[in-house]
């Protein structure tokens, strides 16, 4: 994680300085800026097995988590938008106690943040012994609480576990 932050800052500042003070080969726009930053990041990533072995495997997982999160964000937003714009409610809200596999503070915070940003679900609390999180969710199909829990666990939690363990 620390390595990632350092590399990300280097890539960010590097591409920023390149476009601001350097003599760019390519015209400046948002796409080229992101591409240049990714290129610097990629070069740094290729050098990483020499000093930080696990980082080499973790970055692709982090990217897959991020892409999955963006996909969920957009898809679920459309779901809620559909519910708002049509006259009848299609939702079936429930408060679920999702059992946690993640244990550390960072993992729980990450999971809670991602759940809250996915529309239709809202974190309410973590139980005192850290074994459950209580989440308010809008779409439970056919009152099948277990499969709704399993969806959260398969979607976000396994990806976070792959990233941090």
């Amino acid at each position: 994680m620390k390595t990632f932050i350092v590399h990300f800052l280097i890539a960010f500042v590097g591409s920023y300085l390149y476009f601001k003070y350097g003599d760019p080969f390519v015209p400046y726009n948002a796409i080229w800026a992101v591409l240049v930053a990714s290129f610097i990041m990629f070069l740094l990533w290729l050098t990483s097995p020499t000093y930080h072995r696990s980082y080499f495997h973790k970055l692709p997982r982090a990217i897959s988590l991020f892409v999955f999160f963006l996909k969920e964000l957009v898809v679920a937003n459309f779901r809620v938008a559909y519910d708002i714009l049509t006259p009848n409610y299609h939702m079936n809200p429930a408060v679920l106690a999702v059992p946690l596999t993640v244990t550390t503070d960072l993992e729980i915070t990450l999971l809670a943040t991602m759940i809250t940003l996915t529309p239709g679900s809202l974190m309410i609390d973590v139980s005192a012994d850290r074994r459950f999180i209580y989440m308010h969710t809008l779409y439970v199909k056919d009152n099948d609480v277990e499969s709704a829990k399993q969806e959260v666990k398969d979607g976000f939690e396994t990806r976070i576990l792959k990233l941090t363990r």
Partner: protein
Amino acid sequence: MFENINFLLIREIISSILIIIGVIFMLIAAIGLLRFPDFYIRMSAITKGSTLGLGLILTGMGTYFNEADMLLKVLLIIGFTFLTTPVAAHVIGRTAVRNKIPFWGPTDLEEFKDYLRKEHSTHRDHERDNKHL
């Protein structure tokens, strides 16, 4: 190769589309705030719709102005919004539960009963503190 393409026009089209989609998301979130049945569902509608809408609008701005400084600021704003919005939503939701804001009728509270009972029996500090008022 790039000489006869009007980049300004392309940029304007892309940024307009992004901003329009963002505004539509925010509008839908605002309508949801008005017509959803209870506090918690309204919270879910407004926090997420506005977060995604803000992200899209700012991305459109960054695309339009096409400067490194602008992109830096836009990315910073988006990053901090994505960090702070869920925390705010979580704190407001928890406060609502502690203050006994009711859930919508059809909500399935089966697994939440224990927590509610405990929360409402132990956290009466605010009532005790306000008794003399």
